[in-house]
């Protein structure tokens, strides 16, 4: 009865009642007293009871409290029908949640996993952080103080004041003071409020901007809502600090996102810059090479899952050569079987490669199914680096940028510093003359097409880390790829690099204002106008081949 009335009404009044009831009913409570009662009500189906227990445990110094809270957060807390709570360890053993001793003879099939929802999860994070302030390790205390600062919970203020009195580490102290200052923001003492406002300004955190600018607003009669001019002055200064900082972070952020989008475009387009740029093959199957590269990555992941599950995080090491090799072979086979008969006939090439692309899509669909396949990011590529407050650089984007620089250097080296590169360039400039000089143009054509396809395969590896891997993956990137190569200037790798980074940055600078859909349209309009003015692209190829 009391549980139900708690559900409806203001729960904290009733919390003690169910706690006591539970406590009387449970054998665990007899051992652990109040602590035991709190721990066993963590698993209560009524979330307000569980929430009250979390708040109660946040004040308990015993190690069992932290252990139980962490178990609940990680989904390891089990509840028996009697209400007794157990912690399930990694190796499948059961520990008593209160005493921490291993228990045997409990029927695991009767145990229920204690569930949490977002509100409880938020409370849990705060409670664990509050307990973290008691840790002997200064690093843990700092992390705990950071968490408490991130999401202010006024209920925990007394705990923080206690911890501050005992704290010796300067960083933790400063952080706690700053956090407590926010609590003081709501106080009636003007001195405390001004100190709080200054602390908020110093943190330069955008989160405070709304609160602070509210102090500067006027009501309908034109009077300031905040009567104290000193407080207004402090708020004004804090707001301007935050605004300056905000503008800076926005610029940094948009530039990074632009470069990151540009590097994706470049990866997608680089293979095409070789097959279309150097060889003039309008290769509509280019997108499918990206797709094959992504699927090769998927296969590499499957192989590692099966044979080296311990080293799964490093499947990329196999994926790179595998996708390069697969796509290169497919590309060379295509060149030998279809494309070489169509040199100099762009329309037929276009149709034939489009047909090939449909065939490749359908083949993959038959083998792997129409559904997308899961390519998991290795754990070292998940997450991001906090550059500034509000600017997170995701590791997979950083890795993409590094990877594309590597691929560009590799292609550049191959074309500029190797014999095969020399032959490719000579054929690009004047095919007949190169043939007269004894270059086996057919063989070089095959290798070049293979190289372009292989690079596309490498692009596919990167794309598999950023987006979806499905049979239609290539269709998404083919337009962008042609866009980059045409804007950059056909025949120049450097042109593609500049075009990709330029288009990426313009797109990302437009996006916050125009939205993703309009941004893309503006970009296309821009490209159309640009090509009208300069049909040869950014970097034009000089010499006779330009007419060829």
């Amino acid at each position, binding site marked *: 009865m009391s549980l139900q009335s708690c559900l409806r009404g203001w729960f904290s009044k009733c919390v003690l009642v169910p706690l006591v009831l539970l406590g009387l009913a449970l054998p665990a409570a007899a051992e652990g007293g109040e602590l035991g009662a709190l721990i066993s009500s963590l698993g209560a189906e009524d*979330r307000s009871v569980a929430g009250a227990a979390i708040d109660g445990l946040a004040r308990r110094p015993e190690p069992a409290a932290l252990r139980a809270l962490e178990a609940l957060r990680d989904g390891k807390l089990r509840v028996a029908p009697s209400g007794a709570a157990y912690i399930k360890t990694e190796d499948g053993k059961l520990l008593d949640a209160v005493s921490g001793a291993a228990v045997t003879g409990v029927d695991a099939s009767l145990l229920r996993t204690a*569930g949490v*929802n*977002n*509100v409880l*999860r*938020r409370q849990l*994070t705060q409670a664990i952080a509050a307990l973290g302030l008691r840790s002997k390790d200064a690093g843990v205390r700092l992390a705990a103080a950071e968490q408490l600062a991130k999401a202010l919970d006024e209920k925990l203020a007394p705990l923080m004041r206690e911890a501050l009195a005992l704290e010796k580490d300067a960083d933790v102290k400063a952080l706690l003071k700053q956090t407590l200052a926010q609590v003081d923001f709501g106080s009636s003492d003007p001195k405390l409020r001004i100190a709080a406002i200054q602390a908020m300004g110093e943190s330069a*955190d*955008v*989160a*405070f*901007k*709304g*609160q602070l600018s509210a102090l500067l607003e006027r009501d309908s009669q034109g009077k300031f809502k905040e009567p104290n001019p000193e407080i207004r002055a402090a708020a004004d200064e804090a707001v301007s600090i935050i605004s300056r900082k905000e503008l800076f972070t926005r610029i940094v*952020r*948009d530039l990074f*996102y632009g470069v*990151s*989008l540009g590097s*994706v475009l470049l990866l997608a387009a680089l293979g095409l810059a070789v097959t279309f740029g150097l060889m003039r093959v309008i290769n*509509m199957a280019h997108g499918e090479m990206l797709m094959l590269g992504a699927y090769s990555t998927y296969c590499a992941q499957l192989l590692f899952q099966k044979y080296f599950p311990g080293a799964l995080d490093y499947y990329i090491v196999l994926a790179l050569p595998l996708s390069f090799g697969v796509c290169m072979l497919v590309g060379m086979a295509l060149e030998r079987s279809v494309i070489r008969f169509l040199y100099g006939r762009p329309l037929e090439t*276009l*149709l034939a490669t*489009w047909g090939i692309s449909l065939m490749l899509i359908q083949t993959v*669909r038959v083998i792997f*199914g*129409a*559904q*997308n*396949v*899961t390519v*998991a*990011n290795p754990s070292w590529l*998940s*997450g*991001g680096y*906090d550059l500034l407050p*509000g*600017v*997170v650089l*995701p*590791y997979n*984007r950083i890795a993409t940028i590094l990877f594309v620089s590597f691929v560009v250097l590799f292609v550049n080296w191959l074309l500029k510093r190797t014999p095969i590169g020399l032959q490719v360039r000579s054929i690009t400039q004047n095919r007949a003359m190169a043939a007269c000089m004894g270059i086996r143009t057919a063989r070089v054509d095959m290798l070049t097409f293979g190289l372009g396809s292989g690079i596309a395969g490498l692009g596919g590896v990167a794309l598999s880390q*950023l*987006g979806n891997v*499905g049979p*239609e993956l290539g*269709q*998404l990137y*083919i*337009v962008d790829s*042609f866009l980059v190569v045409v804007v950059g200037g056909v025949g120049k790798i450097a042109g593609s690099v500049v075009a990709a980074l330029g288009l990426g940055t313009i797109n*990302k600078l437009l*996006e*916050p204002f125009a*939205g*993703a*859909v309009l941004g*893309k349209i503006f970009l296309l309009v821009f490209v159309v106008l640009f090509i009208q003015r300069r049909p040869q692209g950014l970097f034009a190829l000089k010499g006779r081949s330009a007419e060829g």
Partner: protein
Amino acid sequence: MNVRLSSLWGGALLMLGIACGQSSSPAPEPAAPAAPGAQTAAPAAAPEPAKDDKGPIKVGILHSLSGTMAISETSLKDVALMTIDEINAKGGVLGRKLEPVVVDPASNWPLFAEKARELLTKDKVAVTFGCWTSVSRKSVLPVFEELNGLLFYPVQYEGEESSYNVFYTGAAPNQQAIPATEYMMSKEGGEAKRFVLLGTDYVYPRTTNKILRYFLQSKGVAEADILEKYTPFGFTDYQTIVAEVKRFAAGKRTAVISTINGDSNVPFYKELANQGVKAEDIPVVAFSVGEEELRGIDTAPLVGHLAAWNYFQSLDNPENKAFIEKWKAYVAKNNLPGGDKRVTNDPMEATYIGIKMWAQAVAQSGTTDVDAVRQAVAGQVVKGPSGFDAKMDEKNHHLHKPVFIGEVQANGQFQVVWKTPGPVRAAPWSPFVPDSSKKVADWTYPWLCGNCTEPKVALAK
């Protein structure tokens, strides 16, 4: 795929023209089905019920088996075939077996209309189960109305529609979007004060967000606390949008309401995880993400994000257990791709209920005649895998459904955190939208109308 192709791929358009010649140019506008209709209208004024009442009853299945929507719709085709098998194994309906006619409209909206016409005029199907996106439904609607066919539509949608020829077994906004938003505003849901409405750029998200905007305003949420953003189909670069959401969320409790459709959800959720947006800070509640869509994502960083549906695979009741068992057995027997990783989801449940309901209505009316069956479907009840009695409303052609809100778990399933005590009646015309609030969907006397403010067939007193 087709959306991208035709909108972006200038070169491909040219080739489409060449490849297709003059024979059957696919009309680019959804409004165009009238044009091919002109050729076939003469012989097919109305599809006649099969003459001999001994042979099998033909049942149309109109789901994309290729293109972008294949991801979601393939499962619906599979579950439809499973249900038909089940009915046939028990002797069929009226002593006749059901014979499925499966066609593939290939995620191509105009092709949906052509295939629908083919089903109705050439195959003379008694009923059709099909469509997923609202744009495909809008495309076939005129065909079903012109030829007096019968369509069961199994997916949650934006409402603002009720057709004499369609039965909607998916959720209307008040059975999904509105309760989910209310939950996010409640104490239990985290008391969100600010809302980001994020969607794919087409009719369903735009209309849903319009309704939500009116709803939020009625609850006193200020205009400045609502951010509306759209991305194209197949969008993959969510960096800027996630950063913007984080910035917008600073200062007030914020919830994201996502109507992103299809595989864009994978990069969106990955980006959320990479930028460290946790469900406890900024929860995302999605209307088009279910068990099937999560199969392609590592869900460990997404624990706590939400989805609102009328069914989850994790529901614990005997009907659902039997349904899942049947599905697993069917997948194993037919060796479907995906094998034991296949899951059940809400639109599959809605398809299952729809077919059962139609079979009951045919048994009741003793004929497959569309006009008779339509009368019999109204008020029909099926005990659904959600554990509740799903009743087809007598008046508005929508199903009464319970609403569940679930949080994503690490295993890709949902844990129900909120549910309605029982089924909710659908309100196809949203009371929150001024233009719609006066409209009535009622297919009984004296209204006989899905979209009007006055009764249509009232007899003079």
